[in-house]
Every structure is written in C-alpha cells, then in structure tokens.
C-alpha cells in the first residue's frame, strides 16, 4: 500500500473513532479502539466506499478485523492486478 493511501485510511479511521492518527496502527481493532463498535464498523465501510468510490462485498467486510486488514482490502480493491 502506498503511504498516502495508508494515511488516507488512517485519517478516515481517526475521524470516525475520534482518536489521534498517531494512536492508530495496523494492529488497531475493535478490541483496542473503544469507539469501533458494529455501528461504527458499518460507518467505516461506508466512509471507505464514499472516499475511494468502490463497493465492498460482504466477504470483504467480514475480513476486516484490524486496520491492517482494512488496508489490505482497500489495496486489493484499488489494484486488483497485484492481488
């Protein structure tokens, strides 16, 4: 993942979960981020779709357990050839 894309995802998550970007790593997950509940998970999905202009499948959504997973999914959506 390009660093700017990484920053974009991190910045979206920081806005939604109301935490500073510096507190978010690829290991961040609903277990470590207080505001990341199931409602916010759906909002995160919508925010990513809105920002990157793609639609995520239910399978992809289920695979997003950590911020690292989220970034992998975003990468595979945007660069399908590198999968």
């Amino acid at each position: 993942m390009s660093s700017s894309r990484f920053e974009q995802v991190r910045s979206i998550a920081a806005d939604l979960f109301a935490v500073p970007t510096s507190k978010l790593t690829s290991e961040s997950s609903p277990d470590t981020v207080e505001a990341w509940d199931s409602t916010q998970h759906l909002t995160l999905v919508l925010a990513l779709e809105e920002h990157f202009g793609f639609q995520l499948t239910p399978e992809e959504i289920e695979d997003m357990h950590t911020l690292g997973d989220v970034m992998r999914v975003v990468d595979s959506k945007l660069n399908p050839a590198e999968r």
Partner: protein
Amino acid sequence: MRKEIDELLAGGSWRAAYNRLGELWRREKGQAASAFVTSRCALLRDHIPFTVCRLTILRSFTVEPIVGPLRAAAWLSGIDLQVQIGDFNAYSQEILDPGSSLYRSSPDVVVLAVQSSDIAPDLWSRSADISSDAIAEAAEHTHKNYRQWVRIFREHSSANLIIHNLEQPVVPSLGVLASQSNSGQRAAFERINQELRNLPREYSGVFILDYDSLVGRHGRERWHDERKWLTARMPIAADMVGQLAHEWLRFLTPLAGKTAKALVVDLDNTLWGGVIGEDGMTGIKLGPEYPGACYQSLQRALIDQHRKGILLAICSKNNLEEAMEALAHHPGMVLRPEHFAAIRINWEDKAQNLREIAAELNIGIDSLAFLDDNPVERENVRTALPEITVIDLPPDPVNYAATLRDCPVLERLSLTNEDRQRTALYAAERERSRVEENFTTKEDFFRFLEQEADISAVVPETLARVAQLTQKTNQFNLTTQRYTEQQISTLAARIDTSVLSIQVRDRYGDHGLVGVAIAHDVDGDFEIDTFLLSCRVIGRTVETALLAHLAEQARLRGRRRLLGRFFPTRKNAPARDFYRNHGFHLESQDGDGSLWSLDLNQETVPYPEWIRLNINVGGRN
C-alpha cells in the same frame, strides 16, 4: 486543516474555528469529515448560540450512518441536533403505546422512515401473484395504517412529524406491463402516496417527505445497495447517504426556525452573464438561448422564492444608472425592480451594504441569505458577517438555479397570506416612513395613519400565522416562547388561556396579522406568557392597544393583577421597557429576566384613541 481547527479550539478562537469547520465541510462532505465536524462543534456549545432540536427517528432500516452527516450539516446551520433512534420495526408499537420511549423523550421532531418493502411486503414482492382486488385492498390497508398512526401520534405528542412516502420498486414486478394499467403495483403505491399528501392539510405539524421523488432524482439503481440491505439492513448506497441527510435538513432547518427572510443577490454574472458596465445592454447574456437561458432559469427560481414570501434584494458593485436600466428594460429580464424590497448598487463594501439592507428591511443579519458568483466576495462576507447564510454557487451557471432551489434556509413548510404579499407590504412601509417625516408630533402622524385593528381569538385559519410569528419574531418579543401550530391549537382549547391575534390596517394598506398575545389564569392573576409584534408595526401604539385589551380581559375575568415577564435575548432590546412604559411595577428580577405587574383595581392601560378597534374574541371570554 484539522490540525489548524484543533489549534484554534485550544486557543479559544471559537468563531474562527467554526468558520473553518464550515470550510472543511464544504470541501469534504462525507462520513469521516462529518464525524470530525460533529465532535468539534460539540466543543463550541457554550461559545456560539445553537438552537437545540431533539429528533427521534422511527425506522424500518439502518439509519445510524445517516446521523453523522445530518448532525454535521445541522451544526453548521446553527442547529444542535440531538438524535434518538427507535428500534428496528418498532415504529408501530412506539406510536400506539402512550407510555413508549418516543413520547417520554418528548422530541421536537419525529421522522417516520419506513420502506415500501417493510410496510407493504405483499405489494412490494407478491403483487404479480395476487388479484387486483387484493392489491387495492393492500393499498387501502396501508394508507389507513398511516392515518391511524398520525391520529394517535397527535393525541400524545405535539412534535412535528415528517413521514417518508413510499418509493416505487426499481423495476416493477410485471415489467412494462405495470404502466399499462391502473390497478397494479405501480398504481397501488401511487394511490398510497396520494392519500398521504392529504395528511398535512388535516393535521398541523405533519409533513410528507417525498422519498419516492428523492430516490428518483438520484436514480433508483444508484440509490440502492442491495448487498448492504441484505447484510446490514442498510438499503442506501454510501454516496447517497448524504442526500437523505440533506433532504431531512430541508425540513429540520425551517422547523428549527433557521430560515432566511431575505435573499440578497449580486447582478453581474449572477442575474445575467457578463458585466453590465463593460458589456452594456446588448452585450450581457440574458435570454431564452444558451448561455443567457441559465440566468433566466436562476431568475425564475428567484421568483419562486419571492412567491414563498422571501424578500429579494440586490447588492452589487456597479454604476446605479446602468444597472437599473438593465433591471427595468432588458428584454431578457424575468425579475423587475418591483420584485426587490431593497437595492444597494454602489462601489461600497458588500458587508456594509448587507448590514444596511438588513436594517432597511428591519430583520436581523442572520435572516439574510447571500447569492454571489464571486468566491472572493462570498468569503469576504462570510468573514465579516458570520451570521449570514452564504450560498455557494457552483462554477457553471447551468447549475445555478438547481443550487438555489436546493437551499434548506429557503424552505417554507406552510404559506400564509402575509408571505404571499410581503414585498407589497414593504413598499407601503417605505411610503409611511416618507410621510412620517412631515408631521411635527407622533400623535398627528398616528391620527393621519387612520389605523384600524382587529383583535381576535385564534381560529383554525390563523393558526399557521400565529405559530409562525412565535417562531420568527425576535425583536419585539417579550418572552421568545416558540410554539408549533399544534401547541397553539392546544393552548387555544384551554378555558384558562387566551390566545389572541391582532391584524392591522391603515390608509396605506393591510399589514395582515402582525401580533400575538397569550395569557392565562394563574392563581388570582392573569399572566402574559407571550406578547409579540412583527417589527414592521412597532412604535405605532398597536402594542398598547393589544396590552390594553389584555388588561380589560383580565378585569372581566375578575383577576387581581395583570402579570408580564421579560426575558432578554440578544435581539429583543426593543421590547425591554415595554411594561415599565405602560405603568407596570417591577416585582422581581433575576439572571433569566424580570417580572412585572399591574394592579387592576387601581391602574389600567388606556386604549390609544387613534386606533379603531374591532374586538372579536368569541363568547368564551
């Protein structure tokens, strides 16, 4: 930019932070930005005046992701929107059960957002299977359900109710056949929606949101996200969520009283293409062909706002003669000088001109909306006058009219006679002020005016206007109590309460219904709960006539004293000395306001002799 905003907040630069949040939102609009805006605006609660509005959403689908963009946009329109969401598909129980959390939370506004597929599943997915009789029956059953909910809701709540109508399926179950008959699925949903449109006429404070048109406007296929519907009960695509939030705001903005009373427009490259001072009458673009047609469309959209009672005004940097010549005589003009209640065409600073326009129209700066093609002028105005609503015209004039029509601050939820005649009222007012200068004493001027006033108990025909005045009047308003039509109607039905309106005419014309007084029995006294007057008749002793009548009513009701309160706001200084000037005594005073009294055994408020009064308060009083 986020960092900068957080620094402004940390440094206590509240207004600057608020303006930057507005800029961020205009640039980014979306889930992430909305979460940022919402969390930061909450910090401004104690520093910038917001109107609190409590919203409850009753729903059959996932609405949680809509709340973020909705609240962000509301914050930036000056509304602190506090949202509660009902359980999935519990809307019917919530409405029918008088003890439900819906009623206990006493919201200001309730949205009933129910999908066609949930409320009418047979019509939605089985209509090809069932007989045309069964289809008609299902349609009737559905609209009768709505009718029952509204009736019961009104028994338990005076909140405003916004009801989504029912959307048509993306593709009708019988395909093109659906359009060949008046008894199928398509006709059934049309029938239900037709019935729903009757409800606002029968119940005050009930409004229909045309969800079917909203979905159609953006494209049914683009609107829906079937996968998210099936997995998360969220039927709306990510990039359409903001559109539903915006549609809700078109109702919530006027319900929260955040409407523009006047719309101030620029001329060059706004009302016409080009610059009149350089291109001249024959050079500016304005006519039925492109590109002049874009400007004619905008002018037609402006006329429509004018018909809704919104005053139009001009603020333009130009030579007055040249610009007026175009306004009055250009063959492509749809608007003419008489459509404008105030005109400032000069080379002065626009912010200063806008202040003068507000003063001339006797409205607050925060009641102005400003329309200008030039982003630099818009930014200057935004910075100099943060209270004003600045409308962002898009770069391409083709989209001007649509942008204007999409502004929540220009929405009206009901129209009164006063709205329809507003510009004529202001023209008569200019004439009065001109004449007033020729009289040496005020009394002579009052006699010359030949004022006539009707004081009446509120009736169904005047409910909308009375409620509107309580919501919109800021200056001559003693207590600034806001009431909905429904609340006024409830008050008027009480035997211990008197809800009065005053209509005023004079030799220059009819002012319409311009004042409201509400008073009720408290122990042995008669206490004034609301006393207000539209600013265009202040200072002509109409207020004295209304107060004199209240004193008379109190005496007839056998009351000992007439009591009145004054609650100061940022705007109601004109009303501050009202009770003192009419012989009331100060009873008490604290941080919230003051209480005044008039002993009816010893004192009275004399009727002004120059106003001819017609009293029509019914048998009850």
